[in-house]
């Protein structure tokens, strides 16, 4: 880091909040994706003024800045390119205000999801989008990628709950978007623009979130399918049941085998398993809902259908689902997790197509995911040190994205584009759309200093 810029940063945040030591630089090179690059330095910011002053400095000196929360993103959104300054937001971690009567909570971006959950639970409330990394991820990161979670089918994603933001835009100006009201259509919806913008349009420094009262009862059940397509059809037909389950997850064959190898859950080794949850305020209500869903399972050739008899049984089933990523990553040296999303009617086709791609390229693509909103998680498992397998993986990925687009789907339901899917943006977005996106980026960040090189915005 050039000495004068280092000094300028220290002048803004103080010596104790600046680092360029090797151990920090290595850590900040990585998030949870397969990408890494050394930043030039990192700063811990504590106030919105810090952020504003740093972005002004970055513009003056043409030095890139990459904001970062917990670094658990899967697509390289937080990977610092071009010797960027990493802006570690995790010390801005205050829950500023909980207002049950206004049905909202105001948080700083560094608040960890689990800490927010704990604070809201005291009031019998929760923030529904529940990413799997909830014990460690930060709300700033959730906003940056429009994080989803298993409850997405019924409760939506982060974007559905962000009422307003305080953002520092790349020229250093501090701006508010949205409001603290339940609804507003005043001016352009800038809030929705920033949510999911992956730190390329501004640095979020305060978030106002709508919250929901917690339900108190739930019914969980599991259904096995000897035929993947039956499972897929069951998922899309659930819409006819009149019930929207709070959770609807699918586990594919490879995933089931891996879970069984690594736990003593002893799941039936079928083509697919569906896990469903219905929620409400009385068990009578949730059981009633589950009955409707079970009917759909039966109509679609479900083999075994089992309702969880106790909370413990239910939590065992969910633990199985949650362990999928980890147990699959123990098989070979490398994993890459995708999150392609298709209309619910196309789930069966997507599953079939993935199977074909996997066989064609001779690479393990285990599937599981949020069947309830069409968001599958095909997980590529391969030996990353074998150049042949790396090539297979790349070819298979490309075919997967093409298949997804052909089915009317989208490259990513909740992880974001980052670096991982940037090469495929033009598969999904037409030239006009790409032009508009790049235009917006240029408007807000003419010097391209904020998280450059992501989302194919540079080309």
């Amino acid at each position, binding site marked *: 880091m050039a000495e004068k810029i280092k000094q300028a940063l220290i002048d803004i945040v103080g010596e104790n909040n600046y680092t360029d*030591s*090797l*151990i920090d630089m290595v850590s*900040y*090179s990585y998030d949870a994706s397969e990408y890494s690059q050394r930043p030039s330095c990192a700063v811990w910011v504590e106030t919105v003024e810090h952020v504003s002053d740093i972005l002004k400095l970055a513009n003056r000196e043409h030095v890139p800045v990459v904001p970062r929360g917990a670094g*658990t993103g899967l697509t390289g959104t937080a990977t610092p390119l071009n010797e960027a300054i990493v802006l570690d937001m995790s010390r801005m971690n205050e829950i500023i205000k909980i207002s049950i009567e206004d049905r909202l909570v105001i948080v700083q971006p560094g608040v*960890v999801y689990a800490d927010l959950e704990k604070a809201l639970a005291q009031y019998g409330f929760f923030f529904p989008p529940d990413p799997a990394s909830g*014990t460690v991820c930060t709300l700033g990161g959730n906003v940056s990628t429009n994080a989803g979670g298993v409850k997405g089918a019924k409760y939506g994603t982060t974007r559905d709950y962000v009422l307003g933001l305080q953002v520092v835009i790349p020229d250093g100006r501090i701006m508010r978007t949205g409001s603290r009201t339940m609804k507003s259509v005043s001016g352009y919806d800038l809030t929705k623009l920033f949510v999911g913008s992956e730190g390329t349009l501004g640095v979020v420094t305060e978030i106002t979130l709508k919250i929901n009262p917690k339900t108190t009862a739930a019914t969980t059940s599991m259904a096995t399918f000897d035929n993947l397509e039956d499972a897929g059809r069951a998922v899309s037909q659930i819409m006819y049941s009149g019930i929207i389950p709070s959770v609807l997850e699918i586990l594919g064959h490879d995933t089931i085998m891996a879970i069984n190898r690594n736990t003593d859950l002893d799941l039936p080794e079928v083509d697919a398993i569906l896990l469903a949850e219905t929620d409400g305020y009385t068990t009578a209500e949730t059981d009633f809902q589950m009955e409707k869903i079970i009917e759909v399972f039966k109509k679609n050739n479900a083999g075994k259908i089992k309702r969880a008899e106790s909370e413990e049984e239910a939590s065992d089933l969910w633990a199985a689902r949650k362990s999928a*990523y*980890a147990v699959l990553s123990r098989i070979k040296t490398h994993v890459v997790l995708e999150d392609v999303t298709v209309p619910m009617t196309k789930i069966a086709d997507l599953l079939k197509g993935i199977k074909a791609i996997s066989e064609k390229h001779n690479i393990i693509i285990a599937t599981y995911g949020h069947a309830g909103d069409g968001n599958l998680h095909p997980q590529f498992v391969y030996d990353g040190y074998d150049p042949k397998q790396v090539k297979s993986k790349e070819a298979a990925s490309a075919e997967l994205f093409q298949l997804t687009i052909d089915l009317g789907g989208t490259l990513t339901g909740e992880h974001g584009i980052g670096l991982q899917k940037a090469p495929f943006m033009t598969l999904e977005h037409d030239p006009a759309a790409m032009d508009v996106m790049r235009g917006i980026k240029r408007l807000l960040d003419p010097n391209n200093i904020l998280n450059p090189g992501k989302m194919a915005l540079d080309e």
Partner: protein
Amino acid sequence: MNKMEAKYDFERKYREQVLQCSRCGFCQAVCPVFGSTLRPALNARGKMLLLKEVMDGKIQLDDELIESLFQCTTCASCFENCPSGVNVPDIIKQVRKDMVSIGTCHPAFKGMNEVLKRHTNIYAEDDAEDFGREKNRKAEIVYFVGCVGLYREEESTEATLDLLDRLNVDYTLIDEVCCSGVLEDVGFEINEELARKNIELVFATGAKTLITGCPYCSRTFNNKPQYAELREKGVNVLHISQFLKDFDMGVKTDKKVTYHDPCDLGRHCGIYEEPREIIRKIAPNFVEMAHHHADSLCCGAGGGVRGAYAKNSLAMARRRLQEAEEIDAEVVLTECNSCIHNLSNAKLRRQKFEVYNITRFINELMENK
């Protein structure tokens, strides 16, 4: 990449595991060093990233890495929660040995190794308390105090011994020396001379049981090959909570009491219930903190961190005590002098709860009866 010759033992032994780290970052939820500093470089993932880069030849294993690789309490919370099953503490311990062998090490630990060559304890103190009791008698049981109990928490040790006396336990103290188990965790090896001394002293008493209040010492005696002879000759090593759990203490308190699981007793030895059994008998108003049993928060003292990174160590202890505050505990109990030392140092003046070893607490109840 994996055609490169493994340069270090940690790579020979743990390469697969280091590669298994999928960088998910879930360890950030439980690592006490990360929790109290919010510095990713000090988190378990941060350490694995450094080691991956060492293995790939991108960086060197040298002084620059000390601040991360020697700042780990080896509490194993990360391992307990790692979806990929990476045994970070075991890897770290081996890495430290590799670093020492190439001449790079935290000065506090190098110092500790040197001290134990010339002194009987890690503090280089020469005057051990004798607690007014005869040492090296013939007895059924040897009570082994441990360095922290002898030189930093004498009041607590005195109370534990008083309790044993009240219970008419036939025990003797010995002219003990440091079990030196800690050296294995900070890059060195158990001091064979010291181990030998302890073994001889124990045999000389004729005791068939060794009890200690120090979970670390009990682990060392039970697991390390240098103490195998103890086990071979039929000496049974117990932590004092295991020994006392069936005693009827005959005292009670209605104070709101909680229990802190020491990492070395809980996660490392699986001893969670024995201390609780003792407590429940004397304190019916027993409440768990938010993190307990295998999820217990590390007090921050272990793995040499209290000696080498005292400020951060105390910050970790403070974080643990906040959980006691959150449940309005009046008394925080544990049975480990190292935890007692760190927790009581970290306790703020405005925090009105008290921190005790179970044995001392019981002794006080008996005294006040």
